[in-house]
């Protein structure tokens, strides 16, 4: 493999890994703080992608504004969904959570089918992000992919600052490490849960919006990403944001280079990675002890 092509593949791996991190961080936060396992998390990614498709005609090249509006909408959606549905799941056992959120996927998929139809749609890349950069003598690298990685990095840094430098973040950290203690501190726990859930939805939807121009939007796009995010969360350790970041990048690299070196078995590579890590550290790389 030439160096230039190797570097291109590294860029691909990082971009994929960062996107996975956005989706998985929401999943891991919601589990870490509320103890809810949410199979419908992939649907939020799908909803984000379809939102990008639906909003595009209104915003044109105002891509950043469109993303901001999308985030606001998905936060609102998360608030409503938490109030109407998820707040009833906290008291239930994992099995019931699995089944109810699994049924929710069916509802979301069918609602998507009724609202947006079943066709594949492309989402245009805004003009100021179109085009490519030359890398080496044969390949060009799309500017949008670089933008996607950058956007993910910005969100990840923002997430880090919120969790580590704000009062809200302090509660989140306290809640993640000891759920009962937070109740004792007299924090408005219901509001905290609602905020965390909405943030999780927004992170997944944002990932969907960023991915939409690259991957186009199509039925069933949420299912694929959900299972890969489970792998990320299992490898990283449930409830750990830094674990999710490390694991997501690891999965991104293993998946990308798996495709290059053993195309036949590329689908398997990340699961083999998971198996190896489970043998070595059953509680994930960064353990929180659930």
């Amino acid at each position, binding site marked *: 493999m*030439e160096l230039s*092509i190797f570097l*291109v*593949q590294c860029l*691909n791996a990082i971009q*994929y890994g960062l996107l996975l991190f956005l989706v998985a961080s929401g999943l891991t936060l919601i589990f870490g703080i509320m103890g809810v396992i949410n199979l419908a998390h992939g649907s939020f990614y799908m909803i984000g992608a379809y939102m990008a498709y639906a909003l595009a005609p209104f915003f044109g090249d105002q891509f950043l504004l469109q993303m901001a509006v999308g985030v606001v909408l998905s936060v609102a959606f998360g608030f409503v969904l938490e109030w109407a549905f998820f707040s009833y799941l906290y008291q239930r056992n994992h099995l019931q959570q699995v089944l109810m959120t699994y049924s929710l996927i069916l509802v979301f*998929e*069918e609602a998507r*089918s009724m609202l947006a*139809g*079943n*066709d*594949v*749609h*492309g*989402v*245009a890349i805004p003009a100021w992000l179109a085009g*490519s950069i*030359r890398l080496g003598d*044969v*390949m*060009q*690298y*799309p500017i*949008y992919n670089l933008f996607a990685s950058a956007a993910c990095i910005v969100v990840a840094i923002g997430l880090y600052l919120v969790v580590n430098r704000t009062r809200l973040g302090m509660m989140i950290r306290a809640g993640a490490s000891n759920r009962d203690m937070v109740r004792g501190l007299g924090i408005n726990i219901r509001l905290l849960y609602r905020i965390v859930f909405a943030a999780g939805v927004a992170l997944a939807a944002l990932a969907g919006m960023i991915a939409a121009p*690259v*991957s*186009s*939007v*199509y*039925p*069933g796009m949420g299912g694929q990403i959900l299972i890969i995010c489970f792998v990320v969360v299992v490898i990283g350790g449930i409830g750990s944001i830094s674990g999710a970041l490390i694991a997501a990048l690891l999965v991104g690299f293993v*998946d*990308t280079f798996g*495709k*290059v070196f053993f*195309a036949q078995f*590329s*689908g398997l590579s990340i699961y083999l990675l998971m198996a190896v890590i489970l043998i070595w550290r059953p509680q994930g790389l960064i353990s929180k002890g659930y």
Partner: protein
Amino acid sequence: MVQAQQAQQAPIKVGLMLPATGTYAGLGDMIEKGFKLFVSEQGGKLAGRELQYFKVDDESDPAKATDNVNKLIKRDQVDVLIGTVHSGVAMAMAKAARESNTLLIVPNAGADVITGAMCAKNIFRTSFTNWQPAYAMGIVAAKNGHKKAMTITWNYAAGIESAKGFVEGFEKGGGKVTQNLTLPFPNVEFQALLTEIAAQKPDAVFAFFAGGGAVKFVKDYAASGLNKTIPLYGPGFLTDGTLEAQGAAAQGMSTTLHYADRLNTPRDNTFRLSFAKLYKTNADVYAVQGYDAAQLLAAGIKAVDGDIKKRDQMIAAMASSQIDSPRGKFTLSAAHNPVQDIYLRKVNGNLNEAQSVAIKALADPAKGCRM
């Protein structure tokens, strides 16, 4: 005598087994619209017989196909089956149709084997085999003076059959296919394989993808700059129903298919107009295939004057009929697959405009068919 009269009065039961959920739901919808358009043009009856529809969502899931088709065959006891889009599901339908001797018309699925090794007297197809458009594309690519080509497809029956067809046509024209790249269906992470294409520098690339995969592949191909130096060819599915999503990336691409936009024949124009009037949307190749499924059925029912008990006569009439399709007139081969013109099309805006006929009256070789 009286009984025969009553049988004449009873509606013919038509079982529509098409996808209503999942990736192919849009295609299923178009096929049904096309089918019902023809029936409504005949005043809602075929040869004086009412039709009664029974619908099952096949979910594009081959694992459930046998159950789903049995709903129509055993539960509803339909007289004729129409379906489907997904080749794997269609194969299960063909299997069940053979076992129960039910009349089956396939309005899309292109698996060669349906009118190949699995062919039967009671199985018809109004669409294509995967081999047909791909073989024509191979001939065209060789004519354009390319010497060295690569293929890239999903690793499943439709993709592999399509690539084989291209190789056959291209090597017949004196070219050489150096490598067949594949990736698992419905995976769309193309970057690594595009890098491989860039490293090998062929004269042309033939790709078989459909739906979301087609959108993403064409876009990625353009984004990596390869389309400037290495022309991309494919069967029509690469650019059919996907142009709005592909945008600028697909402009100027050449593909081959048994149908095209701007054919500008009176037959096609009236068809498109009445389709648009009835459904407020534009017809596409899937609508044509559904429309022709209804035409073929009508030809059979007419030949026996509505008495579908005369099965053998009806099937013989269908097999020897000439269908006046919007795509152009076609007949059926001995294996019951269309013998049809394959068009060379060029992408212009949101249309796949007809350029010329790549091959006239192309018949599938129907390998392994014994009737």
